């Protein structure tokens, strides 16, 4: 993590710095917004607009907290506005309550969870090529092992071996982060 995103200071924004921030936070910000809006394109647009504003007003915007905190606050507010504008489904009420609650100073559980999920995703993304493709087809696309075997022209047994291998690698790699994941998942269930 760079110093400027952890220190509380007034940051000078250049386009290069904004690009760095984008690369560092875009995936997690978008996944975070997606949790509230349940539409990926809406989520992408909201996060993109936050960055567009940042570029267009980089000379006048003053960030008094960390850059990261500024980005999350902007995305939260934009999500809240988007939900209010749509103003329809009952299931969004929980989201409004959550977004409205004062977590500016406290811990944003959903954010922490999204960050940890991203760590797991990155670990999956670093798996060996064949292993990764098979694991993603099973877990992301929901194919059965037989369907994966048919599509890739390999045996079902090979598919199973690759999935075991993936799980073994992931298990070893994400040991430390798992403790915190377990706690969050437990809280989810409560």
């Amino acid at each position, binding site marked *: 993590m760079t110093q400027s995103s952890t220190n509380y200071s007034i940051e000078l924004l250049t386009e290069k710095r904004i*690009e760095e921030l*984008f*690369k560092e936070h*875009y*995936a997690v910000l*978008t*996944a975070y917004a*997606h949790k509230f809006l349940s539409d*990926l*394109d809406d989520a*992408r647009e909201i996060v*993109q*607009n936050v*960055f*567009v504003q940042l*570029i*267009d007003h980089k000379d006048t915007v003053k960030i008094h907290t960390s850059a990261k905190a500024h980005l999350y606050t902007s995305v939260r507010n934009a999500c809240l506005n988007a939900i209010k504008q749509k103003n329809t489904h009952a299931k969004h009420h929980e989201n409004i309550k959550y977004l409205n609650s004062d977590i500016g100073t406290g811990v944003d559980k959903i954010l922490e969870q999204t960050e940890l*999920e*991203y760590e*797991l*995703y990155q670990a*999956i993304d670093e798996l060996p090529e064949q292993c990764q*493709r098979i*694991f*993603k087809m099973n*877990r*992301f*696309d*929901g*194919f059965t*092992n037989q*369907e994966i075997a*048919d*599509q*890739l*022209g390999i045996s079902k047994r090979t598919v*199973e*071996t690759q*999935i*075991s291998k993936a*799980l*073994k690698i*992931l*298990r*070893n790699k*994400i*040991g430390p982060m*798992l403790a915190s*994941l*377990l706690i969050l*998942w437990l809280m989810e269930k409560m």
Partner: protein
Amino acid sequence: MNENKQHIDEQILLSILNQKASEKDVETFEKWMASNPENKAAFDKMRKIWEKSSEIEVFDKIDVAADWKLVKSKSGASVKSRKLRVFMRYAASIVLLIGLSFVLLYQTTPGFGKLAQQKTEINKDQVLLADGTQVYLNQNSRLVYPNHFGSKKRNVKLEGEAYFQVKSDPSKPFIITSENAIIEVLGTAFNVRNDEYGRTIVTVQSGKVSLTDQKTKKVVYLTKGEKGILHNSNLTESENDEPNFDAWKTGILRFNKTPIPVVFKYIEDYYGVKITNRCERIDTLTFNSIFNNDDIKDVISELELHLNVKTVKRGKHLIISEKSN
């Protein structure tokens, strides 16, 4: 890791996660779980990863580099608009008139309301279709697609070249009509190119694709690493020998013991230049390198260094000749 103090076949653990374990497997599994608390901890961990990994697919659909380009193209609009406001008022009325005439045209063209199209000239572009399929369009290409897909099939039409990352949906085949070819898939990633010789070339990166000749109804099935070519009702299938088939999309050009004339062909294609080689000696040489979104200047200077030649650039024309002392 010492979690396997007492050995268990990983496949048994997997069948438990898939809820497809036989009674005998369940018995073996329960014994193993009870034999050591570490075993139970290890399996709990495995199960968490298993469950959680099915909920994070969203990250796979976020393309940070592509979206950054979008942000860059959207930015600056508010600043410009201030300067252009007066001009825009006049321009707007003209645009409105043109727009209205287009609307009229569109409405009188049957079926147009349902369809959308994306067309490229000098710039590449990408389109996200209603079903989540991502299409990257190369230069001078055109994709026609419905705003909403029907309930049975997903039909699109392509001219030029495009790379498809088809969203998987086994109940709705994705069908591309391109020149005389029909390409049908369930969910996978592949490239379709119509080249200057009238050939349609389909190169598969993952999954399985069928390529059909509209005229003869002949079909070939292509899987990962294969390509199919349709040329004047001649349908062939072979291993993909072109490592750079998707260079236009990734920006990465790979050369691995590639003969120099072939290297030049790729550079011509990728950078849109014409190369004349006045130095026969290098035709028999090969070249190894990887260029990742590099400027043509860097490519040329690496070639000059490697081949000991000099290059003269006249606009889009490069002339390669012996280095004179």
